[in-house]
């Protein structure tokens, strides 16, 4: 009996002490295996951050980074520190500082001259037309040996006698700037430093943001309406037929994007397949045919066609996982086919619709090639403008600002989607 009691207490002691011990050991073991798993992914994370995340952050940083003027003009910003546009023209000291800065850069060899060019270009984005003013003044600056510099500069170009160019220089002298973000929303600083709307003839970005959201939303809606029946068909047909039809969805999906877009030019063009058939039937005349391509219609048709597989495939894989017994059970309980579909089947497919929608929407927001080729003038989207500023106007800070706003917007919409539908409710199959 004492033996049993001893074993009992011993057993009880083992249980308590070991329980605590076991928990700690389990925690340590789990932590270790998690750390090992993380180490296995570490090379991939490193590659991703170096080749993907860091360059993107660097590009986004350009939207606020504005060192050119500060690097080019070392004396002028200090001379302008106490000046305000309301006071009229800057003091003589500012003119003297500018001449000294420009003359110094001219004598500074190739690098100095390149800095003058960059400074002139940067200022020209702010104050159109001043590029040649800067290059001309920089050429003549080394010849101005002594004051008064104010009259001499105004004689070189009359713009130096107006406050706009000085206000622009003062504004750009800080290493960080908000002008790009303001411009993406059609705002700018006027000569007094107030934030005002751009002149109406230059306002375009708000329209384009709205248009991009509208087109993306419309394309998503059309993809849901067109893709849902197709997925239903694919999911409910017997396996062999269904596999054959799936190939008809996948083959175009694997064809080059450019080929699919340009084939729409052939189909929808003025003398293209569709209009020729309609003319042959007699529905449209030979003259005055509707314009189906190189406008918004063309963009929407082509984008819907190209993004449809992204909607069909998630919905299809969710539908494949829905057991047919649910519908049968609903029918057996007395529901009409329509009611059973609406109350039982469709709610089960919502995760697939959600996955497909968010995929199509985010892709459509960033679409570039299709609007560029078939969009014409009212089908261009924000990514075309970002590309324009990257490639043609070389205003990379502005392109970065547009990209940053788009990234923030898409992340915001994703967060909203998560709140409303829940990201864990998204299924890809």
């Amino acid at each position: 009996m004492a033996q049993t009691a001893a074993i009992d207490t011993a057993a009880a002691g083992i249980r308590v002490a070991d329980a605590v011990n076991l928990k700690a050991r389990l925690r340590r073991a789990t932590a270790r295996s998690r750390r090992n798993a993380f180490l296995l992914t570490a090379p991939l994370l490193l590659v991703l951050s170096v080749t993907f995340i860091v360059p993107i952050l660097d590009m986004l940083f350009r939207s606020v980074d504005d060192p050119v003027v500060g690097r080019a003009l070392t004396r002028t910003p200090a001379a302008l520190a106490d000046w305000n546009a309301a006071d009229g023209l800057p003091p003589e000291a500012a003119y003297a500082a500018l001449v000294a800065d420009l003359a110094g850069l001219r004598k500074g060899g190739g690098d100095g001259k390149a800095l003058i060019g960059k400074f002139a270009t940067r200022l020209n984005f702010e104050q159109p037309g001043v590029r040649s003013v800067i290059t001309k003044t920089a050429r003549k600056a080394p010849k101005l040996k002594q004051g008064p510099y104010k009259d001499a500069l105004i004689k070189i170009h009359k713009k130096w006698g107006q406050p706009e160019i000085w206000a622009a220089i003062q504004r750009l002298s800080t290493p960080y700037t908000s002008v790009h973000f303001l411009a993406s929303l059609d705002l700018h600083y006027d000569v007094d430093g107030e934030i005002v709307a751009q002149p109406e003839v230059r306002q375009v970005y708000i329209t384009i943001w709205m248009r991009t959201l509208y087109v993306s939303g419309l394309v998503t809606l059309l993809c849901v309406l067109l893709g849902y029946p197709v997925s239903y068909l694919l999911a409910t047909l017997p396996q062999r037929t269904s596999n054959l039809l799936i190939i008809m969805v996948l083959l175009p999906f694997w064809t080059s994007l450019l080929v699919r877009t340009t084939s729409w030019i052939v189909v929808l063009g003025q003398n293209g397949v569709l209009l020729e058939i309609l003319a042959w039937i007699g529905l449209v005349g030979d003259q005055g045919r509707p314009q189906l391509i190189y406008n918004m219609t063309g963009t929407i048709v082509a984008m819907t066609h190209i993004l449809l597989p992204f909607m069909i495939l998630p919905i299809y894989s969710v539908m494949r996982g829905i057991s047919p017994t649910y519908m049968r059970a609903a029918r057996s309980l007395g529901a009409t086919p329509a009611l059973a579909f609406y109350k039982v089947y469709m709610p089960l497919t919502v995760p697939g619709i959600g996955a497909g929608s968010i995929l199509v929407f985010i892709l459509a927001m960033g679409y570039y090639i299709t609007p560029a080729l078939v969009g014409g003038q009212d089908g261009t989207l924000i990514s075309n403008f970002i590309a324009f500023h990257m490639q043609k106007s070389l205003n990379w800070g502005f392109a970065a600002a547009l990209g940053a706003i788009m990234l923030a917007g898409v992340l915001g919409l994703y967060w909203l989607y998560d709140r409303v539908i829940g990201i864990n409710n998204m299924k890809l199959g």
Partner: protein
Amino acid sequence: MNRTFKLATVALTSAFALGLVAAQAQAESITVVSWGGAYTKSQIKAYHEPFTAKTGIAIQSEDYGGGLAEVKAQVEAGNVIWDLVDVEVSDLIRGCDEGLLETIDHSILPPAPDGTPAAQDFLDGSLYECGVPTIVWSTIYAYDKTKFPGAKPTTMADFFDIKKFPGKRAMRKGPKPNLEFALIADGVPTDQVYEILGTDAGVDRAFAKLDSVKSSMLWWEAGAQPPQMLADGEVIMTTAYNGRIFNAIATENKPFEIVWDGQVWDLDLWVIPKGAPNKEGALKFIAFSTDTQRLADQASWISYGPARKSSVAMIGKHAEAGIEMAPHMPTAPENFKNALLNDFEFWADHQDELNERFNAWLAK
């Protein structure tokens, strides 16, 4: 297999591979970037192939769409892969000012056959510190003859006259040179165009003229699009680079006609991005391709005028179609009556502002 045999195989294979690699490394090459399509083809025939035959330096030809973005990206990243780029004057000025291009010593350029030094042989004012010109090209407008059974368009004003000639037109997507065309069509003489365009009222006037045809207008971006749109019947008239339309007429027998009235002409030049991998090879290529004979040769493949005065006399027939090329040059006297030289200074100053305004106008 015994050990010696395996060792021998490995040794032979690696020697062979090393030999191949060494041979590859010794083949010199330069990367030449141009605008693609019929224009690049004319350069390959007139410059690239004879150059490789003469010097053995291989040429990688690449296409781009204009603008300095790639050059700027490469130079700033310190990883330049282009040796030579064909650019417009406004890009040259900007690139040179910002230190993106190498300076070119003009003493490497050969003189004309009659001994005139290169500096005098090239068109006045066309030799720049960072670039050497090759061709004179022009933006004109062209129409499909079969679509005009009665009256035919003959002036720039006809392009903007949708009452007299109803139908769709196409223009290059951008303010350049459409604003000039609009003012010329509105009656401004060519020597006052840039003066008026420098004022706010002038720009408003140009946009008002463009507004009058906006509903009938399609927009192209690549040089190959206008002849395609004309051939497809998408448009009845389109502005285009003159060489591309000529190419469609000469080699594809299209029934197109060029209207030279109000043409805006410009130069194309070779530039070298700063830090190019094979600057020596690029300089040799420039010296070769801009000599008198070569510039006359390219004129036998596409109707762009040579930038050297001595080449004009040597312009002959089209290499494939056998047409006399001289009457199709932008600078031929009968075509040059109402021509406007593109003012690069004006565009260097105003292109950002006018691009913004044009994009805003287009989007409304």
